[in-house]
C-alpha cells in the first residue's frame, strides 16, 4: 500500500510539469495577453509608465525565465552558492552574479549567519531569502522560504493571500455539498432500489431526471427567489434564508446558514447522478446469486442489504462521488457567482478573463494537488470496500 501511495504521489510530478508548462506557453502566446493594459481598461496608458510596470512585473522576460521563477517560488527551498567574495551593496542586500547549471544561484559574499537577506533582481522588486532559515553546507546553502506564488497583476495582492482567503470558502461549500450528496444521493438510491416500482421509486426517478436536466444556475436563482424573496414577503421572514453571501460581522445568521442554498444548488445534479448510480448498482447486486444464497441461509433483509449488497454496490458510487468532490474543490463558478460565494472558482475565472496569470497558475497548481489527493483517497478506499482489491506488490 505504501509503495502504491508513493508511486501515485510521484506521478503528480510529470502531471504538474506538463500542465503548468502548457499554461505558461498559452499565457505567453495568447493573443491580447496584456494584463497591464487591461488594468487601465479603454483609456490609454503612458507607454513609458507601461514599460516600467511591465519590467517590474517581469513580464518582459522570456517565458522560460518566468516559469523558472514560478517554480522557484513554489519550491520553498532555494539552493544558493556563496562565492566568498566581499559582500557588496547595503548590509543584508546580496548581489546576484549568475546561476550555476541554471538552478543554483551564485551570490557574492559570505553566507549570512542568520536572518533573511534581500536582493533586487530588477528595478522595484525586492526578494527576501532565508525567511525560514538556511542550511549551509560549506559554500552551498539551502534557504527556506514560505510559498511564493507571485502577486496578482490586477489586484496588487500576493496570490497566496488571494487563494488562501478563497480556498476555505470553496472547501466549506464543497464539503457541505458532498455531505448532502452522500446522504441524500446514496440514501435515495438505496430506497429506490429496495422499493422498486413503488411510489418512492417513482419520486426518486422523476426527481433525479428533473435535477439532471435543470441548469445549476437556474436552480440557484429559483431557490434564491423562493426562500430569499417570495417566502420572506409571504411569511414575514419565517422561512427566510439569506439568498447570498458568506455572512459578515453584522449578518443576522451564523455562517452555516448562508451555506444552505449554495450547497443544495451545487449538490443537486451530482446527487441525482449518485442516486441513479446507487440504484442501478444495487439492483444489479441484489440480483446476484450470493444474495439469493444469503437470503436462503436465513439472513434478515437488513443484514443482506447492509452487510453484503451495499458494500459491493458502492465502488462505482464512491468513484463518482470522489471525482465529484475533486471537481467541487476546483471551484464552482456558477454557484459562486449566483450566490456571491467568495470561493476560488470565480477568482480563477476572473483571472482568466483579466489575463491575471499568477492567479491562474497558482489556482491550477492548487487544483492539481487537491484532485490528486482526492483521487488517491478514492483509490485507497476501494481496498476497504472490496477485500479482493490490494495495492501491495503484484496486487494492483
Amino acid at each position, binding site marked *: 500500500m505504501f509503495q502504491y501511495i508513493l508511486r501515485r504521489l510521484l506521478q503528480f510530478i510529470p502531471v504538474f510539469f506538463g500542465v503548468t508548462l502548457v499554461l505558461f506557453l498559452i499565457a505567453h502566446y495568447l493573443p*491580447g495577453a496584456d494584463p497591464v493594459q487591461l488594468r487601465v481598461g479603454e*483609456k490609454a496608458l*503612458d507607454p513609458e509608465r507601461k514599460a516600467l510596470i511591465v519590467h517590474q512585473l517581469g513580464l518582459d522576460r522570456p517565458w522560460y525565465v518566468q516559469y523558472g521563477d514560478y517554480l522557484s517560488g513554489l519550491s520553498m527551498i532555494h539552493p544558493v552558492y556563496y562565492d566568498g567574495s566581499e559582500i557588496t551593496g547595503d548590509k543584508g542586500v546580496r548581489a546576484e552574479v549568475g546561476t550555476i547549471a541554471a538552478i543554483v544561484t551564485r551570490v557574492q559574499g559570505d553566507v549570512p549567519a542568520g536572518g533573511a537577506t534581500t536582493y533586487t533582481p530588477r528595478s522595484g522588486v525586492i526578494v527576501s531569502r532565508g525567511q525560514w532559515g538556511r542550511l549551509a553546507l560549506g559554500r552551498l546553502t539551502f534557504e527556506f522560504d514560505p510559498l511564493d506564488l507571485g502577486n496578482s497583476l490586477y489586484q496588487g495582492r500576493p496570490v497566496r493571500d488571494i487563494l488562501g482567503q478563497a480556498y476555505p470558502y470553496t472547501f466549506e461549500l464543497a464539503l457541505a455539498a458532498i455531505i448532502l450528496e452522500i446522504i441524500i444521493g446514496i440514501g435515495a438510491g438505496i430506497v429506490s432500489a429496495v422499493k422498486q416500482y413503488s411510489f418512492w421509486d*417513482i419520486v426518486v426517478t422523476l426527481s433525479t431526471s428533473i435535477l439532471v436536466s435543470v441548469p445549476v444556475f437556474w436552480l440557484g436563482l429559483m431557490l434564491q427567489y423562493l426562500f430569499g424573496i417570495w417566502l420572506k*414577503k409571504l411569511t414575514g421572514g419565517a422561512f427566510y434564508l439569506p439568498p447570498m453571501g458568506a455572512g459578515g460581522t*453584522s449578518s443576522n445568521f451564523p455562517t452555516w446558514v448562508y451555506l444552505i442554498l449554495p450547497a443544495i444548488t451545487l449538490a443537486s445534479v451530482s446527487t441525482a447522478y449518485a442516486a441513479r448510480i446507487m440504484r442501478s448498482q444495487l439492483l444489479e447486486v441484489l440480483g446476484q446469486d450470493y444474495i439469493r444464497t444469503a437470503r436462503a441461509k436465513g439472513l434478515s433483509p437488513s443484514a443482506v442489504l447492509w452487510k453484503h449488497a451495499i458494500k459491493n454496490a458502492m465502488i462505482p458510487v464512491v468513484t463518482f462521488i470522489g471525482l465529484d468532490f475533486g471537481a467541487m474543490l476546483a471551484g464552482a463558478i456558477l454557484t459562486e457567482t449566483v450566490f*456571491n460565494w*467568495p470561493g476560488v472558482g470565480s477568482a480563477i475565472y476572473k483571472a482568466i478573463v483579466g489575463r491575471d496569470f499568477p492567479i491562474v497558475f497558482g489556482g491550477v497548481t492548487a487544483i492539481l494537488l487537491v484532485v490528486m489527493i482526492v483521487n488517491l483517497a478514492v483509490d485507497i478506499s476501494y481496498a476497504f470496500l472490496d477485500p479482493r482489491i490490494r495495492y501491495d506488490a503484484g496486487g494492483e
Partner: protein
Amino acid sequence: MRRFRKSVALVAVCALAIGVLAGCAPKTTTTPTGGTTPKAGGTMSFYIGEPAYIDPYNTQESEGTEVEQTLFDSLTRVDPLDPTKLLPAAADSWSSNADATVWTFKLNPKDKFSDGTAVTAKDFVYAWTRIVNGKTVNTLTGQADPSIISYHLGFVKGFDALAAGDVAVLEGVKAVDDLTFEVTLTKPFADFAFVVAHPALAPVPQALVEGGVDFNGTKVAFGDMPVGNGPFKMSEPWKHEQYIKVVRNDNFYGDKPFLDGVDFKIYKDTEAAYTDFQAGNLDFSPIGTGQIKAAIEAYGQSENGYTVNPGKQCVLGAENATYYLICNTEDKIFKNAGVRKAVSLAINRQAICDIVFEGTRDPADNIIPPGIAGYQKGAWVDTKYDVAAAKTALADAGFADGKGIGTVKLSFNSGAGHEKIMELIQSDMKAIGITAVFDSAEFPVYLKQLDAKKFQIGRLGWIADYPICDNFLYPLFQSKSGDNKSAYKNPAVDTALDAARSTLDTAARIKAYQAINATVQADNPVIPVMFYKHTRVGSSRLHDFTWDAQGLGDFTKVWVDAAAK
C-alpha cells in the same frame, strides 16, 4: 402494475400542486414612509464589485473610487447636483496666477485625518509624489507598483523626471507652509481646480502608509485599511470579495454624516446584487437586466434622476459618459470625411436606445454629454437620423449607394453586450448601401487592434474623469493623445485646445471649447451614438441619497428610515 399506476398518479398530483403554488408568488413592493426630518443613525448598504485598490494612489476603477471618496477628501469637490459647480473641500479657497500655471490652495485648518492628526500641505506633497513616483511601493506586496493613474498629474512640473526615477521629489508641488499648497504646471490649465477634485488626489498620512495601521493590536497594511480625512473611516480591514465597512469619522471637519456607517457589499454579478436588493438586504443596487420598467413600476422614479427618496427610488439620470464609434481616419475608406458623415446620418440612435436599452439611454447629439458646462444641444449636426441625407453624403463622397466601398469591418469587443447595438448599426449601414461585417474580439485583443490601427470602424465609451469639456476634447482629439484612437490630426484643433486651457475666464473658456467642438464635429472622426444613464435603484429606507453624474454617492446627506420595509 396497479401499485405502479397509483404511484404515478400520486406523484402527478403532487407536481401539479407545486406548480399552482409557484404561480402564486407575490410581487415585490415597497412601503414608503413619510417624514422629511433627517434622523441620525443607521447603516446603509451599497453595491460594489471587488475593487482593485482603495489606496488613493492607485484607485483606478469606479468600485475603488466609490469607497475611497468616503474615506478621503480632495482639495475641491464637484457639486453632486450640479457638475458645473466646484465646492471647497480640503481647500477653503484657491487661486491661480495670470496664466494658470501656478495654483495656490489654502487648506482648511480644521482638516484632520480620522486618527486625529492634522492634515497639512506636506501630506498633499507626499500623496502626489507617491502617485507619480515610478518606485512607489504597494503596501500589500512590499514591491514597487507604480500608479497607473499618474496621468492626472501629467502636467505638473517635474512629472517626467520623477516618473522615470531620476529624482525622488515632484518639483512642481510645494508646501509653502502647513496650510498653503502650491502647484506649478508645465503648461497653463485653467480647469485645474476640477482636476484636483478627483478622489485619488487626496492627502495621505505618510507614517501610516509606511508603517501600517494599527487594528486591534496588529499592524494592517495601509492598502487594506486606508486612513484618510473624509467623512468616514474604515471600521475593520477590507474583507476581500465580501465587504468593506466604513463608519462615521467624528474628526471630519465638514458636516458630519447622518449615517453611522456604510456597508459596501461586494458582488460578483449585478444580477446577484439586484436579487439581494429585492430580498431587502441591499439599499442601493444596479437594476437587473430587462427589469427597468418593472423596477420603475415597483419603486418609482427619482424626480431629478439622481436623488433617492421613498417612492422615488429608481435613479436614471444622465452620466458624464458617451458611447461612440471610432473611425480610423488612416483607413482608405474612412479617411474620407464624407463616408464618416454618411454613416453618422444613417444611424437611428433613438431605435438603439429604445430597443436595446428600454429607453434608459439618450441618443447622443454631441460628444460632450449634457450636464457638462459647455454642452450644446445638437452641436454635432450629423447625429440626426436622416437616411436621405446620408445617401446624399455617401454619393458626394464618391460612393453612391455604397458602390466601391466593399465590405466594411465593424469592430467591437465581444461578450460585453455590444452585439445588439452593432446589429442595429449594421442594419442602418445596409440601408444606405454599406455592407458591414462583425469583427469582434475579446477585450484585450480588441484594444491591441485599436492601438495598432487594425480596424475600420470600432466602438468605445468615454467616461469623464472630471466634468469639463477639456476631458472629452483633449484626450479624444488632440493629435498626440494616446486616447485619440481615430488618429485624428488637426493642428488648428491642437492649437485651439492649448489656447482654451490657458483661458482663465470661465465663460470665454467654455466658448473656446464650444468652438473646438464645432470644428471637430464637422470632421466626424468619431460618431457619438448615445449618452450613458444611470440604472440604479435605492431602497425605501433611503432619504436624500444622491448618486451623481460621475457615479459617486453623496453619503454625507443621506439618512435612513429604519422603520421602512
